[in-house]
């Protein structure tokens, strides 16, 4: 199941990760036995809603709600054992070494703080900086995410920014302390189609320039294929298949094939798109 030619020491190592949410009505098993590794590369994680892809991403930062139960044979970032790390160690990891870009800047930015203050806060959480220095650094970051008028955006509140602009602020904020891994959880799903491409190319540019690893979580199969080096396909809390993005059209697993079949095409006329037939055998327990 593991990908081809991994580096000897991957940045992220996950083996047999399980996440459960106990509730009054029973236990929801959101992630069941997921294993993967990320080196200095772009890994795409695709899957439908509820397949456990976001929970997997947040488990890496231990950002799950307090009620969640998490276990794994290995859950490691660099040399840090995420399952064992203390809260102080995790705080250094969050933001400092792993950044997280969320879906919709309308909700993921604090509405009562200016964009600049939120970026400066991320900086000052991980670096010793004075107020002035943090402000200058925030302005420089805003410029680096290709905002034309950094001064205006710096002093603006989130509701005064467009979706694309808000997402640039989010990215600038998460890049501020120079993390080694960026987790982008559906970073373009809430944006207009025309802005989506801009944001993706911005993420690509920044990841390449800074030599970061990227974990791109999305439900958009062609997008991930175009953008990432490798793709892991998740279904019902398990990884169905992991393969180089370039080979996606040759996917072997029935679920991945099914997903690809369902895509409409401009070049090929189809009267009716097929629906996905789910096979319970996909979820057979494995070691």
């Amino acid at each position, binding site marked *: 199941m593991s990908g081809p030619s991994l580096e000897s020491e991957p940045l992220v190592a996950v083996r047999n990760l399980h996440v459960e949410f106990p509730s009054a009505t029973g236990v929801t098993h959101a992630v069941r036995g997921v294993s993967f590794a990320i080196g200095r590369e772009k890994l795409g994680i695709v899957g439908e809603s509820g397949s456990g892809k976001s929970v997997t991403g947040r488990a890496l*930062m231990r*950002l799950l709600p307090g009620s969640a139960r998490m276990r794994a044979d290995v859950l490691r970032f660099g040399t840090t054992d995420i399952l064992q790390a203390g809260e102080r160690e995790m*705080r*250094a*990891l*969050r*933001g*400092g070494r*792993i*950044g*997280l870009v*969320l879906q*919709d800047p309308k*909700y*993921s*930015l*604090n*509405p*009562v*703080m200016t964009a600049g203050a939120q970026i400066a*806060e*991320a900086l000052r*959480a*991980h670096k010793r900086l004075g107020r002035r220095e943090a402000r200058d650094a925030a302005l420089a970051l805003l410029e680096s995410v290709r905002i034309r008028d950094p001064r205006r955006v710096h002093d603006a*509140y989130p*509701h005064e920014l467009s979706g694309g602009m808000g997402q640039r602020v*989010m990215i600038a*904020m*998460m890049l501020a*302390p120079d993390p080694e891994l960026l987790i982008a959880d559906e970073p373009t799903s809430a944006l207009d189609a025309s802005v989506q491409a801009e944001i993706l190319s911005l993420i690509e540019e920044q990841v390449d320039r800074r030599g970061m690893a990227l974990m791109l979580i999305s439900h958009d199969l062609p997008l991930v294929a175009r953008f990432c080096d490798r793709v892991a396909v998740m279904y019902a809390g398990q990884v169905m298949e992991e393969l180089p993005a370039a080979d996606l059209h040759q996917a072997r697993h029935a679920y991945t094939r099914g997903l690809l079949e369902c895509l409409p095409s401009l070049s090929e006329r189809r009267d009716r798109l097929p629906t996905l037939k789910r096979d319970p055998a996909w979820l057979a327990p494995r070691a």
Partner: protein
Amino acid sequence: MLLARLKSLAATAASIPITLLGLAVVTFFIGRVVPIDPVLAVVGDRAPADVVARARIELGLDQPLYAQFWRYLTDILSGNLGRSVMTSNTVWEDIARYFPATFELATLAILIAALLGIGLGVLAATRQGSWVDQAVRVFCLAGHSLPVFVLALVSLLVFYAWLGWLPGPGRQGIVFQDMVEPVTGILTLDALLAGDWPAFWDAVLHLIQPAGILAFFSLAYIARMTRAFMLAELRSEYVTTARAKGLSSMRIVWRHAFRNTAVPLVTVIFLTYAGLLEGAVLTETIFGWPGLGQYLTVSLLNADMNAVLGATLVVGLIYVVLNLMADLLYRLMDPRTR
């Protein structure tokens, strides 16, 4: 942007006279609708017919309703609320004497209630489901359900009668009665202004019980609302962002989540404060506190309509002023309301 901000401020300011006019209409019609004959209230029910008729003309009651309203409006605008039958002072003098007592009590109570209520509410929300949360819940339940007269009497029994730690009812001890020059009518402040420390301390001791009890009831409500607002904020996406940035939980709770509860919380606290300023009748009665609540109740029971309507007008005015203050605070705290 500045222009838009000034415009919305002007709109708020313009709404105040309209609200006040509405308030005057309401008190005027209450005065006409109640089954108390204002003429008889002045001359007594044994007055001869010609005296009654003359008083009727003097009070302007022979004139059409709109003329009466105009007269009422010009009267209250010039500060003339009429004369209280019961105290034979002008209503304005009475209110100037009773209101500071209520103001002192209510302000201290709301300060205690807001500080403790916010603290307990935030504590309960950040430790949802823990024993701390349960303890706060029980404490608040007591605040909601214990009748004020029970709590006030038990408190007097324990702290005044048995332990003797605190003074009994009243605003000040007999030794200090009328010793402090009334400047503001707020006893603690007047004692401070006069530099009279024993009188100040005496006034503070007298405040503790009634203010503590009023604070307890307000606190229960403020804590419960704070907890609910905080729980909603702590679940929101920007809190996940703040955690993903590696911020301390202290900073996430106060700097991020709490600041977003400010607008609804200001509403809750100001409405509670307005309720307290109206005068807490039961608390004031039990603690012999000469406040607005007592004045209103006694006037009402004595059918002293000028006093009742005057005090009602003042209470309405308090609501308008506090609403305006809350409105200005929103603008200060939430950029989306500017």
